[in-house]
């Protein structure tokens, strides 16, 4: 029996080995490890962890099922609340959600809820356990725009309630950020994402790829001509931001979106037709999960890779596990550093980046300490590739082609958090298109809320 104060350690691929491949980093628990870890759960009556979960999984209940060795029951318990447990077990920021509130964590480490969720979901995938479909279909048509976490969750929930759901996806493959954004080594595409999507399809959800709502058709046409009674917009935050510094259009400057899409969706690392320039010395500007993903991808493609971030380590917005993994793999962190110019050679290729050193001043409105430039601290980094990972904003394609949908000044669609209602009747929205770039699980929470909202709306009709 392990020390109850500590998590049962999870097996991982060796850092030196994994830095050269795209295989999954974390191996996850086996049954024995999972049962041992589950015994650490105090089965609190007033379970704080549930409050920390954006989709309110009954965590103690599923963990007790694991402890009893009834993994199928544990899976059915989770899948009542979450459409994508194998994904969430891998990419949720548990430390700031369920595990952050775990009573065990007050003295020692919290229960490893994420790893247990992953174990249960993987076990179900391996054993072909499917979520339970609706007993009766009501035939009411609902359109979901976007097949990322918010769209899949909303579609899954509505299908379980008997609705006839079609997801329209702009890219050629379903999954949204799970496919184009999060790399294989963190979230295996065929084994995990494709199977989770198959599960949602098994509930009766149809997915039509290659349809760009706003271009291929409008929302009004979906409702007036194609007979959809309600629409859920979950088109994400796809537009990359750049810094607006000189030299940003030089060859070798990419958005993290482009770099990751080439590698993940277009599978450049597998010798598909789409090329990627690996780079020999790469700087990734930014400190979020996407920055870590881009940096660890560049590293695996053979580059010396730096994270360039203007605040200090404590402010890095990425998950602790990703930062830890990135360091283990040999990513160099250039903190309190901010680029001011990208330098190009005569042929327009990146040859370096001018930066300044920063120090932290007083906390700003967001509570984070505001970085300030240290005078005369300018220096140059020699580089051949720069990847900008500064966040993304919603694509205006839909809001600009639909009358009656209001957006805020950040181009985010305005929607009621409780039910996803927009300013247009019958049209709901959730996920990054409403919140701006956030996490998979928050998008799923919004998808869930909207499914409930749409159900209430259509029941009242």
């Amino acid at each position: 029996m392990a020390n109850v104060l500590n998590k049962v350690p999870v097996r991982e691929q060796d850092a030196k080995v994994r830095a050269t491949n795209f295989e999954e980093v974390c191996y996850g628990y086996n049954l024995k490890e999972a049962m041992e870890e589950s015994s650490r759960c105090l089965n609190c009556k007033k379970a704080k962890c549930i409050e920390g979960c954006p989709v309110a999984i009954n965590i103690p209940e599923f963990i007790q099922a694991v402890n009893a060795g009834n993994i199928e029951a544990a899976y059915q318990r989770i899948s009542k609340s979450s459409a994508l447990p194998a994904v969430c077990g891998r990419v949720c920021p548990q430390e700031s959600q369920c595990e952050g509130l775990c009573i065990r964590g007050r003295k020692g480490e919290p229960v490893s809820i994420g790893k247990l969720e992953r174990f249960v979901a993987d076990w179900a995938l391996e054993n072909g356990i499917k979520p339970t479909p609706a007993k009766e279909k009501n035939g009411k048509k609902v359109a979901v725009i976007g097949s990322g976490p918010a769209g899949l969750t909303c579609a899954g929930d509505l299908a379980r309630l008997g609705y006839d759901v079609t997801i329209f996806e702009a890219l050629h493959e379903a999954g949204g950020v799970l496919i184009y954004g999060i790399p294989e080594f963190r979230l295996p595409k065929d084994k995990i994402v494709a199977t989770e999507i198959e599960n949602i399809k098994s509930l009766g959800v149809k997915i039509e790829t290659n349809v760009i709502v706003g271009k291929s058709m409008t929302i009004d046409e979906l409702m007036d001509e194609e007979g959809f009674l309600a629409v859920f917009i979950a088109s994400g935050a796809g537009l990359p931001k750049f810094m607006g510094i000189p030299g940003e259009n030089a060859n070798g400057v990419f958005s993290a979106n482009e770099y990751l899409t080439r590698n993940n969706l277009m599978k450049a690392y597998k010798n598909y037709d789409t090329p990627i320039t690996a780079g020999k010395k790469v700087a990734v500007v930014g400190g979020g999960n996407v920055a870590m993903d881009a940096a660890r991808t560049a590293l695996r493609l053979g580059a010396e890779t730096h994270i360039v971030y203007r605040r200090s380590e404590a402010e890095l917005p990425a998950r602790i596990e990703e930062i830890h993994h990135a360091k283990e793999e040999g990513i160099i962190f250039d903190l309190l550093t901010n680029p001011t110019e990208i330098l190009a050679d005569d042929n327009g290729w990146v040859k370096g980046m001018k930066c300044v050193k920063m120090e932290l001043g007083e906390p700003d409105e967001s509570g984070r300490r505001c970085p300030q430039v240290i005078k005369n601290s300018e220096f140059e980094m020699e580089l051949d590739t720069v990847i900008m990972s500064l966040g993304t904003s919603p694509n205006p394609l839909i809001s600009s082609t639909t009358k009656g949908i209001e957006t805020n000044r950040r181009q985010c669609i305005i929607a009621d958090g409780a039910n996803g209602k927009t300013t247009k009747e019958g049209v709901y929205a959730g996920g990054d298109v409403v919140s701006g770039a956030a996490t998979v699980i928050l998008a799923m929470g919004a998808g869930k809320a909207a499914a409930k909202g749409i159900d209430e709306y259509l029941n009242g009709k």
Partner: protein
Amino acid sequence: MYEVLKVEKLADQIYRMNVKAPRVSKRCQPGQFIIAKIDEVGERVPLTICDYDREEETVTIVFQSIGSSTMRMAALKDGDYFQDFIGPLGCASEFIEEDLEELKKKKILFIGGGVGTAPVYPQVKWMKECGIDVDVIIGAKNKDMLILEDMMQKVAGNLYVTTDDGSYGRSGMVTQVLKDLVEKDGKEYDVCVSIGPMIMMKFVCLLTKELDIPTVVSMNPIMVDGTGMCGACRLTVGDEVKFACVDGPEFDGHLVNFDEAMKRQQLYKTAEGRANLKLQEGSTHHGGCGQCGGDE
């Protein structure tokens, strides 16, 4: 899956295909583009729409086989399929929204160079259908590389054909024809739409600026998703950075930074790749396609 209904080889390495794509054909407009992906491993290849038939639910594309994906596309036969065919993407040509009576008063010139002749066609056809006769210049390296002359003849008011080597039609670059039309024939134009290799568009724009003719160009830079997501297609227009896929593909040619755009075209072109291309393309290689990065 999207069925290829008809394949036609127009010139060496240039192909025309009619593809069954109901949703695209219903909504597309002149100036817009599609993305075709032949199979699982294929690239997402952006191609400007050459024609469409809303009744038959087809979209016509014209492309040059220059990379691995387009070479496999060139091998498609009638009845084969594209795995993916996405669109319509980008903005329609601005004149679609213009007041028709105002448009009819304008003297409009279209210039198509090489494969760029294809996206000029639906615009000229649209004009014809609206009862507007426009002047059209089409250019090619030589007689064998000239495409779509017959189709264009049917919809153009006046058609001027030129080849770089003088093997057919007039002799010289499209810019020479434009110069002659204005200076020798006394033609006046209110607007010019020029689509072709970047180097051609650059020189057309230099000339039309001199001649004081507002000019629209259609940019076809490297892109991945075509929906504004990756930013690979960014270019500088005036003082602003624009994404060709969502802000364009058509821009004010007098504001486009062509030199930067041409450098960006070379992103995935290695010296080795260029040499290989030159070998493959043989006599048709002139480095001005805007794809290979040109010869240095």
